[in-house]
């Protein structure tokens, strides 16, 4: 049997379509426990590749005969080695091309909606890491919100759509992934917008994103209104797009809320977080569709692969919006927090321009789940 290569985009379709798949993950046990390819109908077996160098006979009985098998490792080398051995045993198997690194870097564009006057809104779902970014297209122009490091994905998409990226903006200074906002603006000659309160230590020029700013995309009048909404960071800013969509950054997710501790100031920012969630957002139209910058669990993914929900539904169902007691809220978001994202300090420094790691190092820094929420 020949060994097949499965591209991250093919794997993404299997996740979104909730297909069956058996994943043989040959990374170390620690790496597997920390982070893996999540799929609702995926089954897993983890055996480090170094236990299989002398042969795969020992695991043959544990592999299904009637299910598609995908071998996964960090970069792909070990999965090819193990995949070849399984093929020699007569099994039909694939390996994940580029491994977990490529999986972490794959963005799946999902159309959220048409906007007024021919505009469009796309969500880019980073399935391997749970990051969400957005492109607003209108009248030959585009704005990208919370761009990830892989800027070529946005420039290729813009080219395909025949639009020029004029604006990139970050809702806040990210701690879990390296922002592509600045690099993308440099490549396209656009403006990079960042909330000034998150930018006090940055080493580059930027456009100050402030409460009440309106950024127009194209001549057809798609507005992106900035709404100051601190709590995850002191500068965190939301956007209201075309009066229909609320981009909440890392403040409010579908099934969770933002954590206030990633810049080491949980106690200072917890009050801001409560005010934003329990007052500022409460004053907005409940008809707005919430588009966050992350998702944490597969349940947050809709059937079409998008992550979105009406604000009214979140006020009814999201536990983080229904904690009456202020002290209890404080405890929820400051105590028993999940581990912090991998290399979050270095990621913040990179996003501030203070350090400039090479691309291999950037990849390493971003390994693992995003961990930006409290549930």
């Amino acid at each position: 049997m020949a060994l097949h290569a499965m591209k991250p985009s093919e794997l993404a379709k299997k996740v979104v379509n909730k297909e069956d798949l058996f994943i043989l993950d040959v990374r170390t046990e620690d790496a597997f426990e920390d982070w893996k390819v999540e799929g609702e109908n995926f089954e897993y077996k983890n055996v480090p590749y170094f236990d299989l160098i002398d042969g795969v006979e020992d695991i043959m009985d544990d592999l299904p005969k009637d299910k598609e098998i995908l071998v996964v490792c960090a970069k792909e080398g070990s999965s090819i080695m193990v995949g070849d051995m399984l093929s020699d045993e007569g099994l039909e198997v694939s390996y994940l091309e580029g491994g977990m690194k490529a999986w972490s870097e794959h963005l799946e564009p999902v159309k959220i909606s048409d906007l007024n006057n021919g505009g469009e809104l796309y969500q880019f779902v980073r399935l391997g890491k749970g990051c969400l970014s957005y492109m607003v297209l209108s009248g030959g122009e585009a704005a990208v919100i919370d761009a990830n490091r892989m800027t070529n994905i946005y420039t290729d998409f813009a080219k395909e759509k025949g639009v020029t990226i004029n604006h990139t903006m970050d809702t806040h200074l990210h701690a879990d992934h390296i922002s592509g906002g600045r690099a993308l603006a440099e490549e396209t000659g656009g403006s990079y917008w960042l909330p000034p309160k998150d930018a006090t230590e940055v080493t580059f020029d930027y456009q100050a994103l402030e409460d009440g700013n309106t950024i127009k995309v194209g001549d057809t009048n798609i507005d992106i209104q900035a709404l100051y909404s601190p709590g995850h960071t002191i500068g965190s800013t939301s956007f209201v797009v075309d009066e229909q969509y609320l981009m909440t950054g890392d403040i409010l997710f579908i099934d969770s809320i933002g954590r206030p501790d990633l810049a080491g100031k949980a106690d200072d920012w917890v009050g801001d977080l409560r005010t934003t969630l329990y007052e500022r957002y409460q004053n907005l139209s409940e008809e707005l569709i919430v588009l966050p910058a992350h998702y944490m669990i597969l349940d947050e993914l809709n059937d079409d692969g998008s992550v979105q929900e009406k604000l009214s539904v979140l006020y009814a169902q999201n536990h983080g919006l229904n904690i009456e007691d202020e002290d209890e809220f404080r405890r929820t978001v400051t105590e028993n927090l999940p581990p912090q994202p991998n290399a979050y300090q270095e990621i913040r420094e990179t996003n501030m321009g203070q350090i400039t790691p090479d691309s291999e190092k950037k990849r390493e820094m971003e390994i693992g789940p995003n961990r930006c929420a409290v549930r």
Partner: protein
Amino acid sequence: MNVAKTLDATGLACPMPIVKTKKAIKDIETGEVLEVQATDQGAKSDLAAWTKSSGHELIDTDESSDVLKFWIKKGE
């Protein structure tokens, strides 16, 4: 440190550093030390996990330069 054998696995990508290490350690006696040089960053966690599961001991590492160095004491 008394190194019985040195393995140059620089420039090799996973899985080769471990494949070669596994082979090289057969050439030394229990209690002797194998020095492994590698440039693949993944070697750090993989060698640590492999020595643990295979009964050898990772006694020291040097990650200060581009060439990573590992010293592995052969187990029983």
